[in-house]
């Protein structure tokens, strides 16, 4: 297993800077998620670590060794892509065994059999081992693709949205499985996604990316509770953090430079109109089952917050909103210091 250190890594495509001066260290055995929208540079970063792309500037070290110019094969990394690429003419078993049968590895057949079986059981495709790869559902094919990476036991795993083609239920099961497998193996893993739930639930640390740059790097809790700017604040949390100009709601002490207030559900107090001056109107109650999204109009500002699904609120009701320890941002969107 290994530590991965990126120092000033930069990659340009023509005029576009896909990855811009990226510095980041992934500890041995860490599960790091790079989170960001399409075009943020997260996949390019992953490809730079894999050796599929070469940087225009900067250094990459794996396990202390300079790998900036090393070929993909020299890096002992394995890559799981969004699009599963299986050998269609081979069975599931042979697809899983393929990486172990490489002449360079010379793994004995008995050991191959036990490792393939172990991985197949882990991914719940144990009963499909004799099927042709093309006779599987999309979810099963993706599990075979993940299995092919696991079976090799490399020092570094790189995964590019490996769960995005699966349905919601399977995705939530595999999130937990993947995390457990990674912990059991003690593997170093870099995982790319635009799905905040995957990032929050699996990562030991999240790297939030924006236009090729690292906006913030920290534990899910740090990113959620202590975002450094508006961009990062809007990346985590459902419903999305509400941003309202200062003065819209009364707050106690606020930093002098504060221009905006960021309000998550836990920063909003709702009282029935009778107990205080009503300042907002319910525009819609959206049922989600376990909770409801309450859509509010606060002096022309649209706000969304979570409420108990049985709260006696309906469209048109007037309520009194209050702010409780919100996050403050300056005019440029940076976190305003207290």
């Amino acid at each position, binding site marked *: 297993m290994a530590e991965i250190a990126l120092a000033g890594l930069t990659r340009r495509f023509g005029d576009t800077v896909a990855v811009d001066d990226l510095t980041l260290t992934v500890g041995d055995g860490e599960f790091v998620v790079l989170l960001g929208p399409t075009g943020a540079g997260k996949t390019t970063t992953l490809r730079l670590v894999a050796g599929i792309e070469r940087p225009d500037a900067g250094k990459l070290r794996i396990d202390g060794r300079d790998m900036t110019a090393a070929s993909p094969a020299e890096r002992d990394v394995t890559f799981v892509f969004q699009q599963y690429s299986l050998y269609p003419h081979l069975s599931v078993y042979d697809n899983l065994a393929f990486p172990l049968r490489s002449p360079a590895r010379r793994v004995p057949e008995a050991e191959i059999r036990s490792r393939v079986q172990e991985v197949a059981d882990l991914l719940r495709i144990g009963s499909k081992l004799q099927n042709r790869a093309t006779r599987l559902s999309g979810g099963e094919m993706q599990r075979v693709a993940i299995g092919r990476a696991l079976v090799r036991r490399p020092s570094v795993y790189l995964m590019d949205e490996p769960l995005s083609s699966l349905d919601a239920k399977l995705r939530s099961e595999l999130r937990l499985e993947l995390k457990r497998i990674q912990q059991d193996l003690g593997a170093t893993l870099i995982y790319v996604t635009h799905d905040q739930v995957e990032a929050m639930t699996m990562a030991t640390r999240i790297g939030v990316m924006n236009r090729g740059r690292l906006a913030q790097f920290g534990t899910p809790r740090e990113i959620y509770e202590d975002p450094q700017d508006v961009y990062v604040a809007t990346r985590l949390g459902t419903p999305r953090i509400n941003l309202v100009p200062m003065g819209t709601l009364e707050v106690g002490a606020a930093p002098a430079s504060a221009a905006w207030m960021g309000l998550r559900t836990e920063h909003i107090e709702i009282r029935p109109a009778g107990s205080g001056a009503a300042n907002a109107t319910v525009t819609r109650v959206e049922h989600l*089952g376990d909770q409801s999204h309450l859509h509010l109009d606060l002096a022309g500002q649209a706000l969304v917050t979570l409420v108990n699904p049985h709260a006696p609120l309906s469209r048109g009701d007037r309520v009194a909103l209050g702010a409780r320890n919100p996050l403050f941002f300056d005019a440029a969107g940076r976190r305003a210091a207290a």
Partner: protein
Amino acid sequence: MAEIRVTHLHKAFGDFVAVKDSSFTVADGEFFVMLGPSGCGKTTTLRMIAGLELPTSGSIHLGGEDVSMKRASERDIAFVFQLFALYPHMTVRGNIAYPLKNQGVPRVEAKRRVEETARILRILDLLDRGVGGLSSGDRQRVALGRAIVRDPLAFLMDEPLGALDTEMREVMIHELRALHDRLSATTIYVTHDQHEAMAMADKIAVMNRGLIEQFDTPQEIYDNPATLFVADFIGSPSMNLLRFHGAGRRGATTMTVGGNEIAIPPLGADLKETSLVLGVRPEHIRLLDEGGLRARTLGAEYLGTQQIVTLETGFGTVRARVPSDRAVARGETLGLDFRAERVSLFDAASGARIPTGQAAEVVHG
């Protein structure tokens, strides 16, 4: 706009029964969602209402008129498909105006209605653009515009958001519902996505293998699922289902689950010893250090203010949604406490809900 009444609707393709004896009424102005996995019969039902399939038996009334055997063109409804089929060589205006041109609506009238539609959809500024360069959201809006401009008795939508990515889908869910609130048009919407259904519907019919398993408001379906299928299908993570053998007297407020006394809402009738399933939602589980149903933690997933804790019990895996400030270590043994008034019971063989007394609704913020 109109009420849609479906009575004993049945559709067979050879030996295969796609829709079994389906009856429901969509009230005038209601947003009605048919929800279920692929192959459950929801799209076939929709196509029969549209007139694209004819029923084997049963009837469909649209605004009081029996349209069961009428052609699609004779039913005053608009269909929005999953894939927005726009005319690529036409402008947005041309695309939206097309159905009116077909109906021979006078030009001045057509122009007024196209602009009114564009105003409702907030795409007035796009009217004279080609559809080629539009974003997927705007293309979806144009496709909706083509349905709205006809001013039909009802809208039918078949997974209209299926092709969009998560973020765009979220935006369109709100737009579609806001649009519905402005137009108050009777709408039947088909999806396999429970989140879309919960977020938009006034009423939901949950379908499985051609049958409607439950027809009710979203919250009622979530709180009191009528069958095991519904309990498992709705909710993310889904309802925890613990299988056990048990019996109880009418009015009993506990059940013995593998030696553990678990509080339940009062039983509605005597229950002979049989295979049962106890259902409890993740947010109705509390973690205890001592007592309760003992379980070993397999992992915790951080979600901001909350976390999902997965635990192994003697009755299978259980997931609990608890505040994230409670530290949970993997491999630790904990106790589970279920909120009694929120526990559901099912008959394991039939899957049917076992009636229990309605506890008083607990409301807090």
